[in-house]
């Protein structure tokens, strides 16, 4: 249970440090080997070569990615690693077919060779392209953009980060009954340069931070064990995320809860009213709404892996997804959101739009080549590649659930429940390939009887159907309960690419949801 104001932190700090444009900012070029690299010159070579080879459109991305990962357990540092990846990718549109090629050898000769290869691949496929690719227009953009952060985490000494994690571990291990703690910090810096044959030239600098811990309590006599992971997740923030969030308080609480889970009451399977904290609800939003409103999925582009969608273009503006309380907003400008950018990976400016309004599905996530397929004139700017070597593909913007306009607290929602469960944190998650049937676990589960929280439960998972679940929502918290959580490693596509995305939401109440007890006899 929350005894400190984690939500206040996630709500206020996240909103307080909005992203901003830095017109005079230029990319940090810290590498000796890069000092001689002239991105604009390489871009000119790629674009000119592509045009010579018959490309009707071409774009060029030269990106540097920096990763810092620290992993610890108890009072040991297991790994500290710094990783850099630098290279370029060229996308050409020749005779209505895409061709993409990339290389980690950043030289003018290699840019010419790889651009030639991209054009050759496009040409090889154009003979078999049954529907030529077309793009909606996009304004030419020349800009720099930097995500907002107060302290660049890559500037903070490694010793300080180690001290922070071992300090958390120390707190966690103090609780009687705690056996192990694993903690980590994963930091990302993306430095991206984009150029297109339409004249756009965009530089972006992005910082994301993800501290995490997981506490294990083992009962050696019975052979039972339980875990409690941290609740807050990753943020598009700097080191201030580590400095200002009440990590120590959460570690203390989590350690007590890990031990308490061993003795918690097993849940009786059946139908319960659920009250879901944002630290849990974000993942249900992600899986059931975030992915089902991707237009590429609805059109079958992901049928061979992630699947399609229960929503089809003919249902736009007609399909009821949830109760009238439900409003989902796609937003690549949301401060602190992991999918927030200045521009997407084909130079379209970040935007905010409704996916679901008053419970009805109203719009899609689109890119420049998807938009024309449903008769749209503009892209919503959802193209993304996870590396210079990955072909850009449609990826999810931040998708957030609006809070209630009035003041509604967690207690207000709990007080209206006769027989229910309050869930914090994300656990096991699974959903079908058209996003109907899902099952979610959590980190901690609390029994609600006659409007009061009466104790801890264990072995809880709930199953529902997307439209039934959102249709059963009869209460949302107010602004004070709103918080943003997200995924650092959302996977999609073939070859698989990862992306980071956030989902803001208030506390929500859902009526009569099917709950399972997941424990089975151990052999």
């Amino acid at each position, binding site marked *: 249970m929350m005894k400190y104001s984690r939500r206040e932190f996630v709500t206020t700090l996240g909103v307080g440090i909005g992203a901003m444009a830095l017109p005079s900012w230029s990319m940090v070029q810290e590498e000796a080997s890069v000092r001689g690299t002239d991105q604009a010159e390489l871009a000119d070579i790629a674009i000119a070569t592509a045009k010579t080879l018959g490309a009707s459109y071409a774009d060029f991305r030269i990106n540097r990615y920096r990763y810092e990962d620290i992993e610890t357990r108890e009072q*040991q540092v297991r790994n500290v690693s710094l990783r850099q990846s630098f290279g370029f990718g060229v996308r050409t549109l020749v005779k209505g077919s895409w061709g993409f090629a990339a290389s980690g050898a950043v030289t003018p000769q290699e840019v010419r060779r790889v651009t030639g290869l991209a054009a050759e691949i496009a040409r090889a*496929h154009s003979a078999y392209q*049954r529907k030529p690719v077309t793009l909606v227009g996009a304004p030419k953009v020349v800009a720099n953009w930097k995500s907002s952060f107060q302290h660049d985490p890559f500037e903070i000494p490694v010793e300080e980060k*180690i001290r922070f994690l071992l300090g958390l571990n120390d707190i966690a291990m103090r609780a009687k009954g705690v056996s192990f703690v694993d903690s980590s910090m994963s930091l990302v810096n993306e430095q991206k340069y984009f150029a297109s044959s339409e004249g756009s030239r965009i530089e972006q600098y992005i910082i994301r931070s993800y501290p995490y811990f997981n506490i294990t309590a083992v009962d050696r006599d019975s052979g039972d064990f339980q875990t409690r992971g941290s609740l807050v997740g990753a943020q598009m923030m700097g080191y201030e995320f580590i400095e200002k969030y009440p990590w120590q308080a959460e570690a203390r609480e989590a350690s007590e809860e890990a031990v308490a889970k061993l003795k918690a009451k097993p849940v009786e399977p059946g139908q319960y009213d659920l009250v879901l904290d944002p630290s849990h609800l974000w993942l249900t939003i992600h899986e059931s709404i975030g992915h089902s409103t991707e237009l590429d999925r609805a059109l079958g582009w992901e049928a061979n892996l992630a699947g399609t969608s229960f929503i089809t273009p003919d249902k736009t503006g007609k399909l009821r997804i949830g109760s009238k309380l439900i409003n989902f907003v796609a937003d690549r400008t949301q401060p602190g959101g992991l999918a927030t950018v200045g521009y997407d990976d084909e130079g379209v400016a970040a935007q905010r739009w409704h996916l679901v309004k008053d419970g009805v599905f109203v719009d899609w996530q689109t890119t420049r080549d998807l938009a024309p397929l449903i008769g749209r004139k503009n892209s919503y700017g959802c193209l993304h590649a996870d590396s210079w070597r*990955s072909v850009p593909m449609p990826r999810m913007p931040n998708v957030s659930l609006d809070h209630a306009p009035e003041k509604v607290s967690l207690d207000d929602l709990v007080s209206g429940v006769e027989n229910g469960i309050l869930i914090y944190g994300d656990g096991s*998650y699974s959903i079908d390939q058209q996003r109907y*049937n899902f099952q979610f676990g959590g980190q901690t589960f609390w029994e609600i009887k006659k409007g009061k929280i009466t104790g801890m439960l264990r*072995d809880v998972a709930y*199953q529902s159907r997307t439209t039934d679940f959102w249709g059963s929502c009869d209460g949302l918290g107010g602004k004070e309960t709103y918080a943003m959580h997200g995924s650092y490693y959302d996977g999609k596509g073939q*070859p698989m690419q990862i992306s980071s995305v956030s989902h803001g939401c208030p506390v929500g109440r859902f009526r009569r949801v099917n709950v399972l007890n997941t424990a089975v006899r151990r052999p």
Partner: protein
Amino acid sequence: MLLNEPDAKRTCDKLLSYLRADDAVVRVRSNSDSHVRFASNTITTNGSSEETSVQVTVWMNQKRGEASGNEMSDAALRRTVEQAEQIARVSPVDQEYVPSLGPQTFEPVDGYVDATANIVAADRARSMAQVTDACEKAKVSGYGFHQAGAEAAAFASKNGNFNYSRSSNVSFALTVRTPDGAGSGYFARSHFDLGKLDIGQIAGEAIRKALDSHSPRPLGPGIYTVILEPQAVADLLGFFTYAFDARRADEGRSALSASGGKTKLGEQLFDSRLQLYSDPRHPELPGSPSTEEGVPARKTWLVKDGKIETLTYSRFWARQKDTLPTPGPVNSILEGSGSLSTIEEMIQSTERGLLVSRFWYIRTVDPRTALLTGLTRDGLWYIEDGKVAYPARNFRFNQSLLQMLAPGNVPKIGVPVRTYDSGALFPALLIKEFNFSSESDAV
């Protein structure tokens, strides 16, 4: 171009020559990859990329640091070494430090074919066009992904261990859907040799499954007898070898931990005909010649006659427990002993049950019992009186792997085959009791 052995060795030596650290392991890796995707019988995206990268792990006064990068100039390589050393200087002592290995003998592995590594874009485009033509002829839509690539990897330790190896892999996965969206089929295979990947078989099977799965009927959740095709077994057991980690079992936080602080090593946990092992030199499934820690890989039995034969020990944990590090697993092979059955024979022997093509979105729900959830997908059929009766609506399952493979629950086992996963060889299995917890509308 992939690094050849002399060039890889030169890069390793160069990295080692920059060291000030007491001990180190350096790695160099180069890879090339290309792919094409199509949807609704037309090409959507494609790509081709190449990269060479290095990773440097050092210990200075037993303090560890690691850095990696993909810039290969002498200055960049030197800087990567310096970064690793900088980290080591400010890190606490690595309590799990075990000195790097000296020279080892590695058995060569033959899992590289030039034709796979150097696939020609035009040839592939033609081959994919044949698949989409076949789909159009059958009045269905094809959604496919063809990928080919190769990797050369070398590592060297300051104490003299060195190995270089190359591998290639090509795969094709195809989903076929009927135009009304009421039928969906999937088939996928991989191989290290382009010439042994049968595109025609994959297309034929996926089309057949799409047509045969049309208009599935609801059956209601419950416990069913199931016949799991090899792909479905691979989906469930692909990561199962991780459960054999000795340290987690000893620490009491694994499905193979037991009460009283013990483990399930030596227990008859599974059906006595089941054998699970890793073999780097398997001709159909060559694995890496080395474990991640530089130990020469050898055939390793995890389950023998249904008993837990080995738990897997890292070099550190082996030292703690006064045993040897495990020379694997580097791949995953499940076999049955005794007479093996075809899927047709399994169907004929089933009074009432379900034939499962594959599973999807599998997640661990309870690590204590290796209980997984997930869903059937792209082909599920009801079997009645020894025959496939009709397609069934998809299910969500909640099933413990320990219970699924338990003695008495696996009456029939097939011949293991390579599926889509490049690291696994699995057979079809007849499972007596399998728990489906709810229905899914998805097709």
